[in-house]
């Protein structure tokens, strides 16, 4: 019943961003801590930005809404079955434990693993930390070298930096201009003391899918454990830990319409991979991740995985059609639009575009009615162009012009059409303002000009 109400509310917001006034009132306690969202009859004002209604949401790589069916599964574990899953002495504990174990099986099924190989964590960042630092710390006597790529998520790169400070060797593998790993280069970098190869399955900024089966084969050949950050891949593309020869894999709940604050770590049992825990305590989750397992979140994560398994094909077809609609819509009206990253080996829910002669930040400023980002949410506050795009060898001026459109399960055709309309209008407006566009039209090569660098 509640989910029906909620899903209609969700749909309504998605389809008609202007009808947002029906949202439930925030509690006064919450309002005290959070900047109030002022909703006037003329629109919404927040952080000095005035918009006519809630923006349409195209930032699914940052996070996704919770599927109402997921919330349905979670609610009993907040309200009546609130036991600690580690309590052994009463029914509250037993039923929670059962719920956690069935969620573990749901997660495992989605990646063709055994439930015993799933560890619940707070999210992919924690899982990446455990994988990168935990493996090297455990095998530090024999293994001193890690291979990763230049386009990894910050949390993998930062974990590698941390290892470097401890004296480990890290190879940051460059990628090809389409964002994919060069397999021969990867092979040539492997050393006898290489303890881990970490390559993300689907890139968060540009959505390219790495050739995991081939990478897995190389890892098997050299007997090096393979870790992959699959936060953006889980539930969106088929994952088989055996076919891909994956030893460790990081998973996240909130990218697949599950709750925030829950994720998982797949750890292979045969051959067994071992890690040094980052968190010490009560020894939960086989001692890898101490701390009470949050039953409602785990149940939600499990439900989200089961839904993703059932609906992966349907979602993929829908999202693929929407991506085409978006790209064709924009390309039909604008020239100088470049897709960043491979167009073939790509998750269709991610469309990262560069608009020549238009600076990305000013474009985002004009697209306040569309919630998109210029790259990853983690780095969107900095003025630097994306390091992922730079790793692809994208010209620096083009790297300043990128926008990431994230399409998901609840995105509608109307939203895509509106996004096309607003993007085209804004890019045209900014090109009228752009001295670079003027030079381009006058036939002046921008690269021939001696620019004053500063």
């Amino acid at each position, binding site marked *: 019943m509640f989910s029906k109400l909620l899903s209609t509310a969700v749909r309504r917001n998605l389809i008609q961003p202007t009808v947002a006034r029906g949202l439930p009132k925030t509690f006064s306690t919450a309002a005290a801590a959070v900047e109030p969202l002022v909703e006037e009859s003329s629109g919404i004002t927040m952080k000095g930005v005035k918009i006519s209604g809630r923006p349409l949401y195209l930032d699914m790589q940052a996070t996704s809404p919770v599927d109402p069916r997921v919330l349905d599964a979670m609610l009993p574990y907040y309200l009546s079955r609130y036991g600690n899953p580690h309590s052994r002495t009463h029914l509250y504990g037993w039923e929670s434990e059962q719920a956690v174990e069935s969620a573990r099986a749901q997660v495992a099924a989605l990646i063709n693993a055994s439930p015993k190989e799933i560890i619940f964590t707070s999210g992919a960042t924690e899982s990446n930390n455990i994988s990168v630092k935990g493996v090297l710390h455990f095998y530090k006597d024999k293994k001193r070298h890690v291979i990763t790529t230049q386009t990894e998520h910050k949390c993998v790169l930062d974990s590698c930096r941390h290892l470097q400070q401890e004296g480990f060797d890290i190879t940051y593998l460059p990628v090809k201009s389409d964002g994919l790993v060069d397999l021969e280069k990867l092979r040539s970098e492997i050393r006898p003391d290489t303890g881990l190869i970490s390559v993300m399955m689907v890139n968060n900024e540009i959505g390219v899918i790495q050739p995991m089966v081939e990478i897995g084969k190389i890892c098997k050949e050299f007997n090096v454990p393979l870790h992959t950050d699959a936060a953006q891949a889980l539930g969106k593309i088929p994952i088989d830990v055996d076919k891909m020869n994956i030893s460790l894999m990081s998973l996240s709940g909130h990218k697949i319409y599950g709750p925030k604050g829950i994720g998982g770590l797949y750890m292979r049992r045969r051959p067994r991979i071992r890690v040094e825990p980052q968190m010490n305590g009560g020894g939960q989750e086989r001692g890898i991740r101490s701390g009470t397992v949050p039953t409602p979140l785990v149940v939600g994560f499990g439900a989200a995985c089961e839904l993703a398994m059932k609906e992966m094909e349907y979602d993929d077809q829908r999202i693929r059609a929407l991506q085409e609609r978006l790209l064709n819509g924009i390309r039909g009206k604008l020239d100088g639009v470049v897709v960043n990253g491979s167009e073939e080996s790509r998750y269709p829910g991610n469309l990262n575009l560069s608009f020549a*002669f238009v600076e990305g*930040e000013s474009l985002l400023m004009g697209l306040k009615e569309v919630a998109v980002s210029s790259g990853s949410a983690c780095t969107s506050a900095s003025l630097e162009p994306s390091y992922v795009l730079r790793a692809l060898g994208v010209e*620096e001026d083009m790297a300043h012009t990128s926008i990431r459109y994230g399409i998901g399960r609840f995105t509608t055709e109307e939203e895509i059409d509106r996004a096309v309309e607003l993007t085209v209008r804004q890019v045209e407006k900014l090109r009228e303002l752009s001295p670079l566009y003027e030079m381009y039209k006058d036939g002046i090569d921008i690269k021939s000009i001696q620019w004053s660098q500063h």
Partner: protein
Amino acid sequence: MYHERVLDHYNNPRNVGSFDKNDPNVGTGLVGAPACGDVMKLQIRVDDETGKIVDACFKTFGCGSAIASSSVATEWVKGKQMEEVVTIKNTEIAKHLSLPPVKLHCSMLAEDAIKAAVKDYEAKRSKSSGSQEATHLEEKAAGA
């Protein structure tokens, strides 16, 4: 996040456009670099009798603050003498738009663009006529 004046100039930029850069009465300043994410082109039209800037226009590739800074710059130079505009400081533009520290370079670029436009006009004048008045003005501009 943005001051309302920045939003105003971003949404309704003043004096967008281009003058013929070969016109002897036009000075063009092109500063910044695409790789840095900011390029400003600011142009002035000068009355060669009085040295007064009778019109100004701009085009900018850059963030909202860069667009607003150049839009403000064109407003401020219009109707003023050239000696006067070369004294416009980036800090005045930054203060007017309440730019945060990470955006101060936008206002510096606007100041540079004004100076570059004046310099370009002076260079054109001294080249065509070699008049003493122009050299005089140029010295002033360089000293500012």
